[in-house]
Protein backbone atom coordinates (compact mmCIF):
# COMPACT_ATOMS: atom_id res chain seq x y z
CA UNK A 1 0.00 0.00 0.00
CA UNK A 2 1.42 3.41 -0.96
CA UNK A 3 1.62 6.31 1.46
CA UNK A 4 -1.08 8.09 -0.54
CA UNK A 5 -3.40 5.09 -0.22
CA UNK A 6 -2.74 4.92 3.50
CA UNK A 7 -3.43 8.64 3.84
CA UNK A 8 -6.76 8.30 2.00
CA UNK A 9 -7.86 5.44 4.22
CA UNK A 10 -6.80 7.35 7.34
CA UNK A 11 -8.76 10.38 6.13
CA UNK A 12 -11.87 8.21 5.54
CA UNK A 13 -11.46 6.73 9.01
CA UNK A 14 -11.41 10.21 10.53
CA UNK A 15 -14.48 11.26 8.53
CA UNK A 16 -16.34 8.34 10.13
CA UNK A 17 -14.97 8.78 13.63
CA UNK A 18 -15.23 12.54 13.90
CA UNK A 19 -18.21 13.24 11.64
CA UNK A 20 -16.29 15.83 9.65
CA UNK A 21 -16.42 16.51 5.91
CA UNK A 22 -13.68 15.03 3.77
CA UNK A 23 -12.75 18.51 2.56
CA UNK A 24 -11.93 19.55 6.12
CA UNK A 25 -9.17 16.95 6.34
CA UNK A 26 -5.64 17.78 5.24
CA UNK A 27 -2.34 16.19 6.09
CA UNK A 28 -1.50 18.94 8.57
CA UNK A 29 -4.93 19.04 10.24
CA UNK A 30 -4.62 18.78 14.02
CA UNK A 31 -7.05 16.25 15.50
CA UNK A 32 -8.18 18.40 18.41
CA UNK A 33 -7.67 22.01 17.32
CA UNK A 34 -8.78 21.63 13.69
CA UNK A 35 -11.03 18.56 13.59
CA UNK A 36 -12.65 18.92 17.02
CA UNK A 37 -11.59 15.53 18.39
CA UNK A 38 -12.19 14.88 22.08
CA UNK A 39 -10.40 12.38 24.27
CA UNK A 40 -13.00 9.61 23.75
CA UNK A 41 -12.57 9.99 19.99
CA UNK A 42 -9.02 8.63 20.31
CA UNK A 43 -10.39 5.27 21.45
CA UNK A 44 -12.81 5.26 18.51
CA UNK A 45 -10.06 6.21 16.04
CA UNK A 46 -7.79 3.43 17.33
CA UNK A 47 -10.55 0.85 16.90
CA UNK A 48 -11.37 2.01 13.36
CA UNK A 49 -7.70 2.03 12.32
CA UNK A 50 -7.28 -1.50 13.63
CA UNK A 51 -10.33 -2.63 11.66
CA UNK A 52 -9.45 -0.72 8.50
CA UNK A 53 -5.78 -1.72 8.29
CA UNK A 54 -5.82 -5.06 10.12
CA UNK A 55 -3.23 -3.89 12.66
CA UNK A 56 -3.00 -4.09 16.44
CA UNK A 57 -2.53 -0.84 18.33
CA UNK A 58 -1.58 -1.43 21.97
CA UNK A 59 -2.98 0.97 24.56
CA UNK A 60 -1.05 4.24 24.67
CA UNK A 61 1.11 3.50 21.62
CA UNK A 62 -0.50 5.89 19.14
CA UNK A 63 -1.97 8.29 21.68
CA UNK A 64 0.26 8.15 24.77
CA UNK A 65 -1.57 8.95 27.99
CA UNK A 66 -0.07 11.44 30.45
CA UNK A 67 3.40 11.31 28.95
CA UNK A 68 5.12 13.34 31.67
CA UNK A 69 2.73 12.96 34.61
CA UNK A 70 3.88 16.23 36.14
CA UNK A 71 7.50 15.10 36.35
CA UNK A 72 9.65 18.25 36.91
CA UNK A 73 12.57 16.60 35.09
CA UNK A 74 10.41 16.48 31.98
CA UNK A 75 8.58 19.80 32.19
CA UNK A 76 9.77 23.07 33.72
CA UNK A 77 7.93 26.41 33.57
CA UNK A 78 5.49 25.02 31.04
CA UNK A 79 8.25 23.91 28.67
CA UNK A 80 9.35 20.39 27.88
CA UNK A 81 12.97 19.89 28.99
CA UNK A 82 15.74 18.24 26.97
CA UNK A 83 15.07 15.04 28.90
CA UNK A 84 11.37 15.41 28.15
CA UNK A 85 12.05 15.87 24.45
CA UNK A 86 14.17 12.75 24.47
CA UNK A 87 11.31 10.85 26.13
CA UNK A 88 8.90 12.23 23.55
CA UNK A 89 11.14 11.08 20.68
CA UNK A 90 11.29 7.62 22.20
CA UNK A 91 7.55 7.35 22.84
CA UNK A 92 6.53 8.88 19.52
CA UNK A 93 9.17 7.95 16.94
CA UNK A 94 6.65 8.59 14.16
CA UNK A 95 6.11 12.24 15.18
CA UNK A 96 7.81 15.15 13.45
CA UNK A 97 9.15 17.15 16.41
CA UNK A 98 11.31 19.67 14.52
CA UNK A 99 8.91 22.57 14.85
CA UNK A 100 7.88 21.65 18.38
CA UNK A 101 11.51 21.56 19.54
CA UNK A 102 11.99 25.25 18.65
CA UNK A 103 9.28 26.15 21.20
CA UNK A 104 8.48 23.07 23.30
CA UNK A 105 5.43 24.47 25.05
CA UNK A 106 3.81 21.56 26.92
CA UNK A 107 0.35 22.87 26.00
CA UNK A 108 1.21 22.44 22.33
CA UNK A 109 1.79 18.69 22.58
CA UNK A 110 -1.77 18.03 21.44
CA UNK A 111 -0.95 19.88 18.20
CA UNK A 112 1.52 17.11 17.34
CA UNK A 113 -1.38 14.76 16.68
CA UNK A 114 -2.16 15.42 13.06
CA UNK A 115 -3.52 13.41 10.15
CA UNK A 116 0.05 13.15 8.88
CA UNK A 117 1.21 11.68 12.20
CA UNK A 118 -1.43 8.97 12.07
CA UNK A 119 -0.54 8.21 8.45
CA UNK A 120 3.14 7.81 9.36
CA UNK A 121 2.27 5.69 12.36
CA UNK A 122 0.11 3.33 10.27
CA UNK A 123 2.75 3.20 7.54
CA UNK A 124 5.33 2.13 10.14
CA UNK A 125 3.00 -0.53 11.56
CA UNK A 126 2.26 -1.97 8.13
CA UNK A 127 5.92 -1.99 7.19
CA UNK A 128 6.96 -3.76 10.40
CA UNK A 129 4.13 -6.26 10.01
CA UNK A 130 2.80 -5.62 13.53
Amino acid at each position, binding site marked *: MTQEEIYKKVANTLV*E*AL*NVDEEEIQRGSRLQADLGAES*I*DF*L*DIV*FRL*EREFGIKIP*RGELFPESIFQGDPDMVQNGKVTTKGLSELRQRMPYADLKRFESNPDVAAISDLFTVELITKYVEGKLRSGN
Partner: protein
Amino acid sequence: MRWIWIDRFVEFRRAERAVAVKQWSLAEDLFACHFPGYPIVPACLLLEGLAQTGGILVGEANDFREKVVLAKIARAKFQREVMAGEEISLQADVLYIRQEGAAIQGRVCCGDELIGEAEITFAHLDQSRSQQIFGDRNFVFSGELKNLLQQSNMAPATSP
Protein backbone atom coordinates in the same frame (compact mmCIF):
# COMPACT_ATOMS: atom_id res chain seq x y z
CA MET B 1 -38.79 8.84 37.18
CA ARG B 2 -37.08 5.44 37.11
CA TRP B 3 -34.31 5.40 34.56
CA ILE B 4 -34.63 1.83 33.32
CA TRP B 5 -35.52 1.54 29.65
CA ILE B 6 -35.33 -2.26 29.35
CA ASP B 7 -38.03 -4.65 30.56
CA ARG B 8 -36.00 -7.85 30.41
CA PHE B 9 -33.21 -9.64 28.64
CA VAL B 10 -34.15 -12.44 26.23
CA GLU B 11 -30.63 -13.32 25.04
CA PHE B 12 -27.21 -12.86 26.62
CA ARG B 13 -23.93 -14.19 25.25
CA ARG B 14 -21.01 -13.03 27.31
CA ALA B 15 -18.84 -10.30 25.72
CA GLU B 16 -20.63 -10.92 22.45
CA ARG B 17 -24.34 -10.16 22.19
CA ALA B 18 -27.31 -9.14 24.29
CA VAL B 19 -30.95 -8.69 23.34
CA ALA B 20 -33.48 -7.00 25.60
CA VAL B 21 -37.15 -6.21 25.06
CA LYS B 22 -39.19 -3.21 26.05
CA GLN B 23 -42.90 -2.61 25.73
CA TRP B 24 -43.99 0.98 25.79
CA SER B 25 -47.27 1.43 27.63
CA LEU B 26 -49.56 4.31 26.77
CA ALA B 27 -49.76 4.87 30.53
CA GLU B 28 -46.14 6.15 30.60
CA ASP B 29 -46.09 9.77 31.75
CA LEU B 30 -43.91 10.83 28.87
CA PHE B 31 -46.70 10.26 26.34
CA ALA B 32 -48.76 13.00 27.97
CA CYS B 33 -46.62 15.53 26.17
CA HIS B 34 -44.80 13.44 23.54
CA PHE B 35 -47.20 14.10 21.87
CA PRO B 36 -50.84 14.68 22.83
CA GLY B 37 -52.88 12.48 20.48
CA TYR B 38 -49.73 11.13 18.83
CA PRO B 39 -47.83 8.99 21.35
CA ILE B 40 -44.37 8.27 19.96
CA VAL B 41 -41.30 7.14 21.87
CA PRO B 42 -38.53 9.77 21.94
CA ALA B 43 -35.61 8.41 19.91
CA CYS B 44 -33.19 9.44 22.68
CA LEU B 45 -34.89 6.93 25.01
CA LEU B 46 -34.49 4.20 22.40
CA LEU B 47 -30.79 5.09 22.36
CA GLU B 48 -30.71 5.01 26.15
CA GLY B 49 -32.28 1.53 26.04
CA LEU B 50 -29.60 0.42 23.60
CA ALA B 51 -26.92 1.96 25.80
CA GLN B 52 -28.28 0.14 28.87
CA THR B 53 -28.42 -3.17 26.97
CA GLY B 54 -24.90 -2.67 25.59
CA GLY B 55 -23.55 -1.20 28.83
CA ILE B 56 -24.61 -4.25 30.85
CA LEU B 57 -23.14 -6.52 28.16
CA VAL B 58 -19.82 -4.66 28.35
CA GLY B 59 -19.88 -4.40 32.15
CA GLU B 60 -20.61 -8.08 32.65
CA ALA B 61 -17.71 -8.99 30.37
CA ASN B 62 -15.40 -7.64 33.11
CA ASP B 63 -17.52 -8.99 35.98
CA PHE B 64 -18.79 -5.44 36.63
CA ARG B 65 -15.37 -4.32 37.86
CA GLU B 66 -15.23 -1.37 35.45
CA LYS B 67 -17.35 1.74 35.67
CA VAL B 68 -18.82 1.73 32.18
CA VAL B 69 -20.22 5.05 30.99
CA LEU B 70 -21.78 6.08 27.71
CA ALA B 71 -19.17 8.22 25.98
CA LYS B 72 -20.11 8.67 22.35
CA ILE B 73 -22.70 7.84 19.75
CA ALA B 74 -20.81 8.05 16.49
CA ARG B 75 -23.95 7.69 14.40
CA ALA B 76 -27.60 6.85 14.86
CA LYS B 77 -30.26 6.39 12.22
CA PHE B 78 -33.95 5.66 12.60
CA GLN B 79 -36.27 4.42 9.85
CA ARG B 80 -39.53 5.21 11.59
CA GLU B 81 -41.11 6.21 14.86
CA VAL B 82 -42.03 3.76 17.63
CA MET B 83 -45.60 4.13 18.86
CA ALA B 84 -46.99 3.42 22.35
CA GLY B 85 -48.05 -0.22 22.62
CA GLU B 86 -45.30 -1.61 20.44
CA GLU B 87 -42.84 -4.16 21.79
CA ILE B 88 -39.35 -3.55 20.58
CA SER B 89 -36.14 -5.50 20.87
CA LEU B 90 -32.86 -3.80 21.68
CA GLN B 91 -29.95 -5.71 20.22
CA ALA B 92 -26.33 -5.04 21.12
CA ASP B 93 -23.36 -6.73 19.41
CA VAL B 94 -19.87 -6.09 20.73
CA LEU B 95 -17.53 -4.40 18.26
CA TYR B 96 -14.61 -4.40 20.68
CA ILE B 97 -13.79 -4.45 24.37
CA ARG B 98 -10.45 -2.96 25.37
CA GLN B 99 -8.90 -1.81 28.63
CA GLU B 100 -9.89 1.80 27.95
CA GLY B 101 -13.44 1.16 26.82
CA ALA B 102 -15.70 -0.64 24.41
CA ALA B 103 -18.14 -0.19 21.55
CA ILE B 104 -21.28 -1.95 20.40
CA GLN B 105 -23.38 -1.99 17.27
CA GLY B 106 -26.95 -1.49 18.38
CA ARG B 107 -30.19 -2.24 16.56
CA VAL B 108 -33.77 -1.45 17.49
CA CYS B 109 -36.27 -3.86 15.94
CA CYS B 110 -40.00 -4.48 16.04
CA GLY B 111 -40.37 -8.15 15.15
CA ASP B 112 -38.23 -8.59 12.04
CA GLU B 113 -38.44 -4.94 11.13
CA LEU B 114 -35.31 -2.87 11.63
CA ILE B 115 -36.32 0.47 13.11
CA GLY B 116 -33.04 2.04 14.05
CA GLU B 117 -29.29 1.53 14.32
CA ALA B 118 -26.57 3.15 16.36
CA GLU B 119 -22.90 2.69 17.10
CA ILE B 120 -22.22 3.38 20.76
CA THR B 121 -18.86 3.85 22.47
CA PHE B 122 -18.40 3.33 26.21
CA ALA B 123 -15.50 4.50 28.34
CA HIS B 124 -14.11 2.68 31.35
CA LEU B 125 -13.59 5.37 33.95
CA ASP B 126 -10.00 5.62 35.09
CA GLN B 127 -9.85 3.32 38.11
CA SER B 128 -7.61 5.43 40.34
CA ARG B 129 -9.31 8.75 39.58
CA SER B 130 -12.85 7.42 39.91
CA GLN B 131 -11.83 5.69 43.15
CA GLN B 132 -10.79 9.08 44.53
CA ILE B 133 -14.06 10.67 43.48
CA PHE B 134 -16.60 7.90 44.01
CA GLY B 135 -14.87 5.48 46.39
CA ASP B 136 -15.14 1.72 46.00
CA ARG B 137 -18.79 1.73 45.04
CA ASN B 138 -19.52 1.05 41.38
CA PHE B 139 -22.27 3.63 40.95
CA VAL B 140 -22.96 2.45 37.39
CA PHE B 141 -23.81 -1.13 38.22
CA SER B 142 -25.58 -0.85 41.53
CA GLY B 143 -29.19 -1.79 42.09
CA GLU B 144 -31.65 -2.27 39.28
CA LEU B 145 -29.35 -2.02 36.30
CA LYS B 146 -27.16 -4.88 37.51
CA ASN B 147 -30.11 -6.92 38.73
CA LEU B 148 -31.78 -6.91 35.33
CA LEU B 149 -29.79 -9.96 34.26
CA GLN B 150 -30.86 -12.03 37.28
CA GLN B 151 -34.45 -10.86 36.94
CA SER B 152 -34.46 -12.07 33.36
CA ASN B 153 -32.99 -15.45 34.42
CA MET B 154 -30.24 -14.80 31.93
CA ALA B 155 -27.29 -16.44 33.58
CA PRO B 156 -24.31 -15.35 31.49
CA ALA B 157 -23.04 -18.12 29.29
CA THR B 158 -19.90 -18.17 27.23
CA SER B 159 -20.37 -19.03 23.59
CA PRO B 160 -19.34 -22.53 22.47
